[in-house]
Structure formats: structure tokens, C-alpha cells
């Protein structure tokens, strides 16, 4: 569990205690909340969702340190409110390092719509092939079957997959996405596309297993 930049240990402890009385559960809730904040800011067009998510967490922790109480039963709604304020403030900055994506014209995009030439495509394919081959066989089967890679049309077999694995759809979603995210990281490293972290879902909720 990583501390947000600028977050004090005391503030973090108060935050965890507010999220759940048990520390492990609180830690999971914190990771999930941070993932939600990252998504929120990314979809609002923030250039640095991590920075904005950290600022949101810091503000909530500071308020708790100052003795403010979060009255809402579920702290998530409170976080969303603070996140909206953070967003408004960044948009209001005259130097505006953030720019809503909706304001960007297609012509302003940094790259053309067809990013990979033949050579680049072949290189990435070789990386993909290698990274897929390095996966655990069960993970490999899961990710290929779940996303139906290689099929021109969707056949919608996910219910069968969930039944076979004895898991809920949400649990299978999370597992498949985790494998996909790790595969993406491997391909990026191999293809020299840097170490950018694909957005991911941090944990599987309890009660995902059936029976």
C-alpha cells in the first residue's frame, strides 16, 4: 500500500481508521478508492490523474487531522465531493496545466490515428507473442478466452467461462483485467513504450466465489 505524496503518517492512519476498523480491510478500501479517483480524474481529462488523486486524499486526511468528521456512512461519496472541488480548482488555474479532453479538436491530437507502421506492428506482435507465452497457462487461457482475441466477432461466451471457473462475472472481470494489465506492461517494456501503468482494478471483492 503506497502513501500518497505529501500524506503524513498520522493523517493516513486516521484515514484508514475511517475507512474500516480492520486495517487489512481498510487498506483494500484505500486502494480501491484511489483507483476510483484515478479513473475519475483520467475521465475528466486531467494530464496527471495521480497528482490529482493524491491531492484529494491529502485534503481528506488533513481534514480528519484537523478534527473534521466525515458524516456520510460511506466515505466514498465524501471523497467524490472533494475530488470535484480539486478538479474545479485545477480548471480555474490561469496557467491551466489541465485541459478537458472534450475541448481538444481531433486535429490537435499528438499522434495520428494509425500509430503503428508495418515494422512497428510486427515488433509489437513478436513482443505480444513472447509475453503471452511467458504467462502461466491458466492465465493465458483466461485472458485469451475472456477477451476473445483472434475472433473477428464476439460470441459472448463469458457466462460459460464464469460457470466453468465457479466465479461471479465481476470476479472473472477483475482477474482477466489484471492479466491483461500485466501483459500490457510486458509488451510495453519489450516494445520500448515505457513503463506507463495501465489503469487497473486493485482487488477482488469478497464473496466473489460461488458456493
Amino acid at each position: 500500500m503506497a502513501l500518497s505524496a505529501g500524506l503524513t503518517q498520522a493523517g493516513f492512519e486516521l484515514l484508514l481508521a475511517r475507512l474500516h476498523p480492520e486495517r487489512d480491510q481498510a487498506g483494500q478500501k484505500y486502494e480501491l478508492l484511489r483507483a476510483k479517483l484515478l479513473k475519475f480524474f483520467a475521465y475528466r481529462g486531467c494530464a496527471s490523474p495521480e497528482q490529482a488523486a493524491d491531492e484529494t486524499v491529502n485534503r481528506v486526511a488533513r481534514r480528519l487531522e484537523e478534527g473534521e468528521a466525515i458524516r456520510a456512512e460511506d466515505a466514498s461519496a465524501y471523497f467524490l465531493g472533494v475530488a470535484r472541488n480539486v478538479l474545479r480548482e485545477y480548471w480555474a488555474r490561469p496557467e491551466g496545466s489541465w485541459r478537458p479532453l472534450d475541448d481538444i479538436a481531433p486535429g490537435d491530437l499528438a499522434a495520428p490515428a494509425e500509430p503503428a507502421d508495418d515494422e512497428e506492428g510486427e515488433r509489437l506482435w513478436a513482443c505480444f507473442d513472447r509475453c503471452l507465452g511467458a504467462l502461466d497457462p491458466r492465465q493465458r487461457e483466461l485472458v485469451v478466452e475472456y477477451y476473445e482475441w483472434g475472433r473477428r466477432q464476439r460470441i459472448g461466451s463469458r457466462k460459460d467461462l464464469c460457470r466453468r471457473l465457479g466465479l461471479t462475472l465481476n470476479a472473472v472481470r477483475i482477474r482477466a483485467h489484471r492479466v491483461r494489465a500485466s501483459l500490457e506492461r510486458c509488451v510495453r517494456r519489450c516494445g520500448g513504450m515505457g513503463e506507463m501503468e495501465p489503469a487497473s482494478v486493485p482487488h477482488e471483492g469478497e464473496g466473489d466465489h460461488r458456493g
Partner: protein
Amino acid sequence: MITVDERDPARDPIGRFLLGAASEEERQQVEARLFADDEFLAELQDREDALVDDYAQGRLAEGDRAAFERRFLASPQGRARVAFARAAARLAPPAAPARTWAPAWLPAAAAVVFAIAAGVLGLRAVRLGDELADERSRASAREQDLTRRLDALKPTPQASSPPAFVLQAQGTRSAGEIREMKARGSGTVVLAVPLPAARYTSYQVVLRTPEGALVWEDAGLQPEDPNLRVTVPGTALPPGDYILTLSGRRRTGPAVELADHYFRVVG
């Protein structure tokens, strides 16, 4: 089955949200759900992955494609995700539900292991191997015979399929060599793509406009004689010029580009 024409994420609020096409009210509703419902993050992520895959495989409608590009291709991370999805789309389709994916090095590794085992176990293992090979050979002959008999019972393709438009081998766009076909607003178009002499395990076709826009893509196609038959929805081929790129793939390794075929659809 979801067909290409039905891939329209802008039809529901979550799809519009992901494409950046949602109203402010819709957007706030999706955000509120994101924070209130712990399972929704995974669903949203799943929809996003599907959207990236759909874009990479040319399954999005024109308007959705433009919205997607504006939202996802503005960042290096978004572009990397699309590049990844394009690579993933090149996987050959699974042959059977119980298929086990094998890495490229597996046949060679298996041969080495077999050689060591034969040396250790001696002639007995070799004899068993021979017997197994004989049995496999007999089983294969029986299967081929059965396939021939089943094929003989099937109606001929011409009886049920629309007539195929045969593409010119190595057609070029110069000197009036482009073959022309009549547009079909509905139904399907069957393109017959000449296959080169060297055979591959499977084939892939990518259909683009001369400007490079992806029109149609199909992979894992099995070779037929003398042409590869590719079925494309008539709506995907309005009047205009097209380039079909044929690639072949062996059991392992990347696809190899084999030929470009130019053709024109006229109204």
C-alpha cells in the same frame, strides 16, 4: 452473436461516458455510481478494454471512432493500449474450446525431451513410439476418409452462398487494372482472394481504403483451393477504392504479408 453493425457504444450512458460523449448529468451519474458501487469500477474497466479492442479491430461506427480517437489517442498511454490491442487481435482464433495455447519453443523443447527419454529408456520406448505413430497414422487416415464422406454430403457452396468477386492477383491501381464490382447495400459480399503457392496454416485479410482507414479485418482464415473466400457485410463496402492485404501465418511466428489486391466498388 454481436455483429459489426451492432457495435455502437454510444447507445448507452456508460458507452457515451467512455467516449466522452455523455452529457454533464450523465457523466455525474456514472461518477456517482463509480464511487458508490465497488463492483462498478471493474465493469467500467471491462467496458473500456472492450472499447479499445473494438477500435483496434475496426468494429466501431464512424462517429464512435472519431470520439474514441479524440479521447484515447491524445495520450501516449492510450496509443500504447491501442497498439497492444492490435497485437492481441492478430492471435489466431482458438480451434476448439479445450485448446491449449503452446509457446513457439514448445515443439523444439518437446523434441529434445523426447530424444533424452528415448536414450534413457532404450529401444522399448522407440518401439512404443513407432506403434503410437502407426496408430496416429491410421486414425488420421480414418478421419480424412470420414471428412471426405461428410464433404460429399454437403451442398455445394454455390448453392447457398452469394457469387464470389474474384480479386485480381497483384492488382495495381495504375493503368486501369482495377477490377470493379457492383455495390451491395445489404447482405454480404464474398471476395475470392487468390492464394500464393506457398501455403500457410492460416490467413489474415485487412481491408482498407487508399487513405488507410480500416474497413474490415478477419484472421484465422483457413486455406481453400484455389482462393480464400472472405465474407464481408455489403454495408461495409460503399462505392470507392479498396486495398485488401493478405497475410499468412504459420503455426508459430508472426504473420507474413503476402499480397495487396486493389479493387473498386461502383454504385
